[in-house]
């Protein structure tokens, strides 16, 4: 826009500054606009005017036409003015002051504005020049304005872009019907952007996370379990397919009901803004597992969340088995199951045997040496057991060492904080502080075979991270082994596809069978790396498993952490999540869940 104008004004300048007295200082920009002496003017000006129309019509943009067309009359004024009057003013614009600008009072202020345009680059129609009692109009008469010689004028105006409203109107939380406030926002990409922006500033346009669960009387163990499990989108979609898959024959009635209730509850949570009352779910849970109906003083007792977690998962794994009932199609197992290969070794007899088992969670044993999750896990994978030795013919102590054989998408770790104290006959709690990381690497807990499989994806991941940090990964090229090709592949593409794959994995409509494939194999191009990111923490506060308070802390897709304290969800900072590691009377992690990090090859 500016460019076009320049031409017009160049033209104007040409007409007004046709001839200069020789020796006039050309360097001073303000001097360029000075009109030539009247005596010398006549001839060249007429010439000029005769030339101008043809030129200007071609070049000028449309909206300025009338202004320039009016110039001939201006010329008349000019010639009429027998005595010439020049005013010298200074113009203040922003922080600058332009001294000694001459105004030819016989010319309309528009010319003056053109002068200023040359000095400041502000187009005339954006210029606001303050004179006594108002703004300087383009066609005003200088004599009526009463500008004095040496006066200071002030100009306001910028060549900045004019602020435009965003094309798509921003929808405020207030504008939405209340029920939709929570759910709808997640679906509109634009609003998600708003959300993310504001969430960074803790203004939080609207929650962006699902509702809480009402405590029905010591049911926080159940609420927090549900909230943690709900954070697994694959489980949600598996459940949503449940009715389609139908009920397989070997699932009993109560399991079926519990599965349906779980599905309904997850759905309610997603839809509602206010806290949901899980009455139906609770009834079914108690029906299926009567141990949760224990009463104490007429109230339902507080229960162990771990038991609830395990039982619920077990039920779901039973009912969600595809009708084809092949081992692979067990959705829950595919998501949470950890295959362990154990070597059982008897030191006395030297016997050795190996066995495999599948568990849904790893145990983190807490002893005096354990300060960190990793140590606890190692501890938990080693054990002693007594059994009858066929070689010795008596019971002997066997050492059992387990290693992970296959990795789950979601790795659940239980801190073994509760134990039965014989001497006092009660469940005691270990308060010891055990740190856990936001990013867990379980490579050294894996079996040899698995390690080999993980080798390449891990290298890939390291390379990508290195690139992200801006480091050129020389190691890959130096190694010169099989990975060469990977390293040379355009990193951008692979990076995108990997994130795309990950995102795809979280899209709720994906059939669960796809994920099973994805989780168990690497045909699709995504690989486990043995690196896990923390996604949810179930904490306990209090001195024993049957009392105290359970709370769930869940990471959202947006990356922010939400604490679900029964019916109150609230935003938390990531730093605070790692502070739940125990060692005091604050909430401490009891069950934590990690999500696998994938890399595409």
């Amino acid at each position, binding site marked *: 826009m500016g460019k076009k104008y320049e031409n017009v004004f160049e033209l104007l300048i040409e007409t007004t500054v046709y001839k200069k007295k020789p020796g006039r200082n050309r360097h001073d920009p303000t001097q360029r606009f000075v009109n030539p002496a009247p005596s010398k003017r006549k001839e060249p000006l007429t010439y000029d005017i005769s030339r101008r129309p043809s030129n200007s019509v071609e070049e000028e943009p449309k909206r300025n036409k009338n202004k320039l067309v009016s110039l001939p009359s201006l010329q008349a004024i000019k010639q009429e003015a027998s005595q010439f009057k020049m005013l010298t003013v200074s113009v203040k614009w922003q922080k600058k002051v332009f001294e000694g600008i001459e105004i030819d009072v016989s010319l309309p202020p528009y010319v003056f504005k053109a002068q200023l345009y040359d000095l400041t680059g502000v187009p005339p129609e954006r210029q606001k020049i303050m004179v006594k009692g108002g703004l300087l109009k383009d066609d005003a008469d200088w004599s009526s304005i009463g500008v004095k010689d040496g006066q200071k004028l002030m100009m306001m105006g910028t060549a900045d872009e*004019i602020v435009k409203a965003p094309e798509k109107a921003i929808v405020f939380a*207030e504008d939405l019907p209340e029920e939709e406030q929570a759910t709808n926002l997640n679906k509109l990409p634009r609003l998600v952007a708003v959300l993310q922006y504001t969430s960074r500033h803790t203004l*939080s346009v609207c929650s962006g996370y699902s509702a809480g669960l009402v405590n029905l009387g010591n049911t926080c163990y159940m609420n927090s379990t549900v909230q943690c499990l709900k954070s697994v989108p694959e489980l949600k979609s598996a459940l949503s397919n449940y009715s389609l898959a139908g009920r397989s024959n070997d699932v009993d009635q109560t399991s079926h009901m519990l599965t349906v209730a779980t599905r309904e509850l997850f759905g309610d949570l997603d839809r509602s803004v206010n806290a949901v009352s899980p009455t139906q779910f609770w009834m079914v849970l108690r029906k299926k597992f009567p141990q949760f109906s224990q009463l104490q003083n007429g109230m339902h007792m507080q229960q162990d969340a771990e038991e609830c977690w395990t039982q619920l998962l077990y039920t779901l794994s039973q009912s969600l088995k595809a009708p084809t009932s092949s081992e692979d199609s067990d959705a829950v197992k595919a998501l949470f199951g950890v295959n362990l290969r154990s070597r059982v070794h008897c030191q006395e007899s030297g016997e050795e045997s190996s066995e495999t088992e599948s568990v849904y969670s790893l145990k983190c044993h807490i002893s005096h040496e354990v300060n960190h999750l990793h140590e606890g896990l190692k501890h938990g994978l080693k054990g002693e057991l007594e059994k009858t030795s066929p070689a010795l013919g008596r019971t002997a102590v066997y050492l059992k060492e387990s290693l992970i054989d296959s990795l789950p998408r979601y790795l659940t770790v239980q801190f073994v904080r509760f134990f039965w104290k014989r001497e006092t006959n009660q469940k005691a709690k270990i308060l010891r502080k055990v740190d856990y990381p936001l990013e867990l690497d379980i490579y050294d807990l894996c079996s040899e075979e698995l390690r080999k499989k993980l080798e390449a994806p891990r290298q890939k991941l390291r390379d990508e991270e290195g690139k992200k940090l801006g480091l050129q990964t020389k190691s890959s090229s130096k190694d010169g082994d099989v990975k060469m090709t990977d390293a040379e592949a355009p990193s951008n593409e692979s990076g995108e596809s990997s994130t795309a794959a990950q995102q795809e994995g979280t899209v709720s409509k994906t059939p669960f069978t796809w994920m099973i494939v994805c989780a168990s194999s690497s045909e699709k191009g995504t690989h486990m790396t043995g690196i896990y990111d923390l996604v949810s923490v179930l904490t306990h506060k209090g001195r024993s498993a049957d009392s105290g308070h359970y709370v769930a802390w869940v990471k959202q897709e947006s990356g922010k952490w939400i604490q679900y304290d029964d019916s109150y969800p609230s935003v938390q900072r990531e730093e605070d999540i790692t502070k739940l590691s125990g060692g005091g009377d604050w909430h401490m992690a009891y069950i934590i869940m990690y999500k696998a990090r994938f890399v595409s090859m």
Partner: protein
Amino acid sequence: MAPVPDPNNVGGGAKRDEATTKVASKDPKKKDDKKEDDLSEEDLELKQNLELYVERVQDPNPELQKAALESMRQEIRASTSSMTSVPKPLKFLRPHYGTLKELHKNMADSDLKKLLADILSVLALTMSAEGERESLGYRLTGSGGDIGSWGHEYVRNLAGEIAEEYTMRQSEEASVEDLMDLVKQIVAFHMKHNAETEAVDLLMDVEDLDLLLAHVDRTNFRRTCNYLTSSAKFLPGPDDMLVLDIAYMIYMKFEEYPNALQVALFLDNMQYVKQVFTSCSDLLRKKQFCYMISRHGITVELDSEMVADKDDRDMLQDIVNNTKLSEGYLTLARDIEVMEAKTPEDIYKAHLLDGRASSGPSVDSARQNLAATFVNAFVNAGFGQDKLMTVPSDAASGTAGNWLFKNKEHGKTSAAASLGMILLWDVDAGLTQLDKYFHSTDNPVLAGALLGVGINNCGIKSDCDPALALLGEYIDNEDSSVRIGAIMGLGIAYAGSQNDQLRSSLSPILNDAKAPLDVIAFAALSLGMIYVGSCNEEVAQSIIFALMDRSEAQLGDALTRFLPLGLGLLYLGKQQESVEATAEVSKTFNEKIRKYCDMTLLSCAYAGTGNVLKVQDLLAQCGEHLEKGDIHQGPAVLGIAMVAMSEELGLDMAIRSLERVLQYGEQNIRRAVPLALGLLCISNPKVNVMDTLSRLSHDTDSEVAMAAIISLGLIGAGTNNARIAGMLRNLSSYYYKDASLLFCVRIAQGFVHMGKGLLTLSPFHSERLLLSPTALAGIVTLLHACLDMKSIILGKYHYVLYFIVLAMQPRMMLTVDENLKPISVPVRVGQAVDVVGQAGRPKTITGFQTHSTPVLLAAGERAELATDKYIPLSPILEGFIILKENPDYREE
């Protein structure tokens, strides 16, 4: 006290005697007899001598009489030095007082009689019964010698009797000539002997302060004026003005121009201001005057008489016009290292709250964004940069233009206007940045830009009148939001300017039958601001007509309250005489608004006067229990605060009365009490008030709670007070579900951290002497708006919050050298001590710390230079202070 009786010292006994002088005099004999034995030989001799003199006086021989009287006088004079005990000669002469009196009565007129009268006058000091004024009587008939020769106690007693006599004679309309002669003598004596306060008291009693002028000198004028100015606050009008007049004249006499200017500003007397300029010839000192005027926030046009040279005049006018305020403020900010822009989140400090509070599920987004807009504007006020509005628009996230659009409809007005606040006082940069909004087709944005220009220009005057030039053409815009933006902007930019051009363009709106009510309300308010304290009759007329034209329904509207308020502002602090006519007219209004108007006018007229009678009137209004519907008690409660806020004592009393009102008042009164407390302690977080407000902020009535929360912000405004900040943070979690209350909490948080703690809202400055009328107008307007929070601030007129900009001033002391460049010198900053009426040169601050300038001054703090290298050109070290090098200074 001394257990062992000392024969040479009967001080203990004498002291007791003095304490019971008047009582004892009824029965002197008995007491004297008792003591007879304790007398030392010397005393005994004195006593005998005196008795002898008394006898001789009664002798018919005039020679002997005279000799006796002379000796008696000698004895008395020789012993009047002690102030702590009744002099012995007087004591011993006590039994003979009656005899001498009798003698005097029967004596023929002669010198001897006068001599005796003198002695009797002195004796009456301890003998005369209350109310008899015998001392004065004998003095008048006496010889009239040097009054001081009888000692201070005598003079003091005489002064007291003169005052009584004077009032009596006044009521009888008798001549006071003879008294005045005596007064002159006494005043001369007091002024010579460090008893300026007594001299002033006496002169005030006899209503002839002019006498003072003749007796002040270099050594005592300061103490005299100090006493005069501080006593003025307790005097009823028009005496207070008289007293200050005298103070002004004394200051002028001793060329103490800064103080004279201060008094002139207090009197709002432009003639005096001019006189200060014309009397002073030093340009540098004139610069200092200009800084003082600019702080007061009034419009003064310097003319050639005041400053002869044109260039000098321009430069001085620049200072008066506050054009350098932004620069000085930024210097301070840089020195204190608070330039870094703060986001609303830095203020909310949600991470300090445990758990859920930070953002509940029921957050109200546009409301919260609006709150963030205000907080951002208040916190970054005047810094020229922030993180929401001034971020360069080419930033990747594109937040700059977008924050504006994160506000809804009328919210955009406040958002656009916040830019004006962020660039407060920096007109050049402000206009540049606001320019882009001028081309917006979105009316609320345009309205905000107009308002922003007004805010930006608040307190800054310029020859080019950019605000008038820019806003003028929008006054009659067809969109009423744009109109309001322009009108309000003009009101803020030209507050106190009494600009005729504005009157002629704004007045017609008031009487335009087609104009919507809100436009009329804001026009009235703006006119009130522009003509604040001017008593302009034409403006008053227009507003009165506008009020009369309102229909019944319109009178019930929340915004209608701005009409009486605009009217009241015209008379701000001008007291009864000026407001009388208007108050009379207001009696003819519709009864819906009549009382409201009455209360508003009364409270505005007496604002800052400390008039106890008016406080009582207003309290009486609050004591009534109304049926319902009447809203005039709100302004009455605010009025108590407005009247009483001027001096400490009245302020404390008002706080206590308000506690009472809170307990026994009706609900509509309770809602106004927190606001009144906020006004009383604005930017001065007193702990007791803080506690009261904290309690009220949890009140079951949400209006009371809202008012209390806003007031918490007001009392902590610009202080960064950690305690209030903590309270508000907890309130934000307590009220996280209630969007309206949360909004108030956020606003209050913005107030507390206003200008990152560099600003104050206190309308008082110059050691709490001067009250800036525009600042008070801004605060009062905000408070009146808060009386109906729901329909104004929580409705679509939230931008009235920006009226507070009128009161925003840096609470700094910035020292500049002779070229007005900032220099850093050590200063002591401490709690101010009241030194009025103290003898000698008492310390003016206590518990001080030494800093180097620029420094921040908190409420009740005072600064003094900690170096002799420079001489400050103003004794009141606040705001901009020019330092002159001390020629006598020697480096050690």
